[in-house]
């Protein structure tokens, strides 16, 4: 069995204006497919990646926001959203997609993937990682 490492993907950019958000999501899925311990953090404009109601027909780009709902299937169950970044943008957790994962050890109970954390809490979470990848 290969070594499992704790990966945190740190997302700081809005979707669609640049390719970072989509690239991050793809690498997250690949890392998770290799059964690594993967979590994601959404900071600064990264919080916009999780906004509800994205409709991209008008700009001719693929809407990849539905893919965040598949993260639970890949055992990516910890999506940390920084509270300060939400507040600065006038957003609350209710403006974000309702992302769930199913806990196999708890009779497949549906649990929230999104956890709103303070900057100080996020600093602790970052300290606990082995690898942090920035997008």
């Amino acid at each position, binding site marked *: 069995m290969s070594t499992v490492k704790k990966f945190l993907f740190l997302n700081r950019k809005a979707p669609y204006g640049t390719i970072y958000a989509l690239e991050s999501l793809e690498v997250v899925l690949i890392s998770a497919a290799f059964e690594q311990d993967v979590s994601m953090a959404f900071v600064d404009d990264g919080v916009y990646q999780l*906004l509800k109601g994205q*409709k991209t027909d008008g700009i001719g780009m693929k809407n990849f926001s539905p893919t965040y709902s598949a993260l639970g299937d890949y055992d990516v169950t910890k999506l940390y959203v920084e509270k300060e970044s939400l507040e600065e943008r006038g957003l609350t957790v209710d403006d974000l997609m309702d992302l769930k994962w199913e806990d196999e050890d708890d009779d497949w109970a549906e649990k929230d993937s999104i956890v709103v954390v303070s900057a100080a809490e996020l600093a602790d979470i970052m300290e606990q990682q082995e690898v942090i990848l920035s997008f």
Partner: protein
Amino acid sequence: MAILHIVNKSPYERDSLTSCLRDAKSGSGLILIEDGVLAADKRGKFAGALGDASKGMKVSVLGPDLDARGISRDNVVDGIQIVDYAGFVDLVAEFDCPQSWL
């Protein structure tokens, strides 16, 4: 000469909008596109600055870029007009010169 200022960067990430508003004259135009549309969200912290700007300038935002990012059109700052791509072209034609703040 009336300039159409074009801002395509998020105001939270770059200071292009702030610089543009500082250097733009009243009577000029401003259109927010791509990640620049995030400034037009009335819940966010640039709502005040844009509301003030819209009193002296013609401020617009590109609708398809709002839709893509899940920013509801109801959440756009009052005084900003929402345009489609054809409306963007009309603005470029209406003003003397476009100026992109990269």
